[in-house]
């Protein structure tokens, strides 16, 4: 492992195990995912709703609450040349790792702040739990400095969450994630439910934080436009698996998987007034996956093998991996 790597996953599997009327139902939300994420990059993960993006993030963050269960694999962080297997840490070690080394911007910032305390109190709770020996005033001073550096209005600290707009709350959530200068920030749909003007501000803030901390941001969003804007490398997820991974430019200019091509082709382009085609059909239920490649029922280019066997994610170019029989057949 070169020392440019911050996070590696080995065949992680996270399933939702549900008990439906006595019979067990297994939803394979994340199935055999291998990722290698580098320092100082924005890594994007795209895919339709319900393809396992958020579950993947939760797994990487070791946030498993029933019915979500970790079924196998490894999530390793590299911190100062030290390997940390987050899923085998004790509760207290994991608590300390969070926010100091990895931070999270959850989906839907509308209701993530305690409604009965001012935001400076929320700041204080985060700082208090990770820094020791600071007085109340010192902590509020750190919070003020931090807000000022990011160019947010200082008065948000004195506000209650309900007094701020959705965009401002999202910005505070992003600012808070960078508070302790973590090496990795997970951003789960940070722009959802915001209008495009506010989205721009939010994306810019993420970018600013990444540039000043030189850390890694793992950005999940279904919005390909945002990936095009800020992701350095990206992965496309489909039915709990990574089906294509490459540099963002490569994904947009040379998509190899038919699903990726559908995603790219559905984006509006300047000057082009043609009708945009989307992938036909709906994503499969993760509880009842089709045999073979999970995309084959919707794939216009499917062959026999697609319905029988699951394609592996293989190298299909420099820095480009694809899981599709159309591409990997040539190697056989």
């Amino acid at each position, binding site marked *: 492992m070169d020392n440019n790597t911050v996070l590696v996953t080995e065949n992680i599997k996270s399933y939702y195990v549900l008990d439906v009327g006595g019979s067990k139902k297994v939803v394979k939300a994340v199935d055999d995912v291998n990722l290698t994420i580098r320092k100082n990059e924005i890594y994007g993960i795209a895919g339709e709703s319900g393809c396992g993006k958020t579950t993947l993030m939760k797994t990487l963050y070791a946030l498993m609450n029933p019915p979500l269960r970790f079924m196998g694999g490894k999530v390793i962080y590299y911190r100062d040349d030290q390997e940390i297997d987050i899923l085998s840490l004790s509760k207290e070690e994991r*608590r300390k790792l*969070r*926010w100091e080394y990895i931070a999270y911007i959850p989906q839907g910032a*509308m209701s993530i702040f305690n*409604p*009965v*305390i001012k935001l400076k109190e929320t700041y204080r709770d*985060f700082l208090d*739990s990770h820094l020791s020996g600071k007085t109340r005033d010192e902590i509020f001073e750190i919070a003020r400095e931090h807000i000022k550096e990011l160019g947010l209005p200082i008065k948000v600290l004195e506000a*209650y969450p309900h007094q701020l707009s959705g965009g401002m709350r999202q910005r505070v959530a992003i600012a808070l994630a960078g508070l302790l200068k973590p090496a990795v920030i997970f951003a789960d749909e940070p722009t959802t439910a915001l209008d495009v003007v506010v989205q721009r501000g939010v994306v810019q803030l993420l970018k600013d934080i990444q540039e000043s901390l030189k850390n890694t941001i793992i950005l999940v969003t279904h919005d390909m436009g945002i990936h095009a804007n800020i992701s350095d490398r990206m992965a496309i997820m489909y039915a709990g698996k990574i089906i294509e991974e490459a540099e963002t430019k490569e994904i947009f200019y040379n998509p190899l998987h038919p699903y990726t091509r559908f995603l790219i082709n559905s984006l509006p382009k300047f000057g082009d007034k043609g009708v945009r085609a989307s992938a036909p059909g709906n994503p499969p239920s993760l509880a009842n996956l089709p045999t073979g490649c999970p995309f084959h029922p919707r794939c216009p280019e499917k062959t026999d093998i697609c319905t029988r066997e699951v394609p592996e994610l293989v190298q299909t170019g420099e820095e480009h991996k694809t899981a599709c029989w159309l591409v990997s057949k040539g190697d056989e």
Partner: protein
Amino acid sequence: MFVKRYLIPRLLQYFLVIFLGITIVFFIPRFAPTNPVQRTISEIRSRGTYLNPADVEQMVADLTRLYGLEGSWGEQYIEFWRKLFKGDFGISFFQFPTPVIELIKTALPWTVGLLFTTTVLSWVIGNIIGGIAGYRNNRLWSRILDGVVMFIRPLPYYIFALGLLILLAYVFRLFPISGGASIGRLPSFTLSYILDVLKHAFLPALSLVVLGAASWFQASKLIVQNVNAEDFVQYAQLGGIKERKIMFKYVIRNAMLPQITNLALSLGQILSGALITEIVFSYPGLGNLLFSAINTGDYNLIMGITALSIVAITTLVLMIDLLYPLFDPRIKYK
């Protein structure tokens, strides 16, 4: 802005509720089939006294005047309000001729002392323990506690109180069996008298606190389990905020909000007394007084006690309404 748009209408509503409540209380006993004047006279007769008809007529007239039953209901009503503003509820029928206000004054400290303490105590205990048990609802002790409470809570109060009395005052003679203080002791501000009162209050208080706390426990546990699933609690966990802080500042703090309203309502109910407690432990208080008043058709006393509790409940609700923004910043009156 606050005064004009919120406070003044709210105060008007407050007085209107009191006015209507007391008006209803004035009329309802007058529909009851007992005639207090006739009852008093037959009581005197039953003692074997001979009364000549002229005296009886004179007595009827006197009693009717004393009880404020002269004239039409309209006239009585106006007279009633006139006296009320002077703090005069008239004289009691069943403890003739003690003024109602005197009877209330004697019973009130016992009731308020016992019930205020137990209501607040059970609220605090029930909510804190229920909150912690709700937050840690997968721990063994939490589940055991839940089972114990589930057993205690549906016990009929009467049985539970009697059981305590038999066990702790009769079988093990740890506490006095009845009364508010030792017989023959005069109220005074000495340590020994206060200890005596506390000793007498212990069993009634225990019975009320255990059952009261059990029901607060269940309510609070349920609310906490809902708050647990809120986004802001999950976010605090994502942020590695210390567990104790999440539990108290994030979960229990928010779960308390609906319970504050409930506390105010329970406090308002204090002035109706705790009848069964007072009967089982022979404890002095408003419950017994109200019960006798209803039994003997003692209008003045009924009205005195109910008027007091109407004022108490409405005042407490008003206070909570005005104080609520302190607990929940999302509520603001403009």
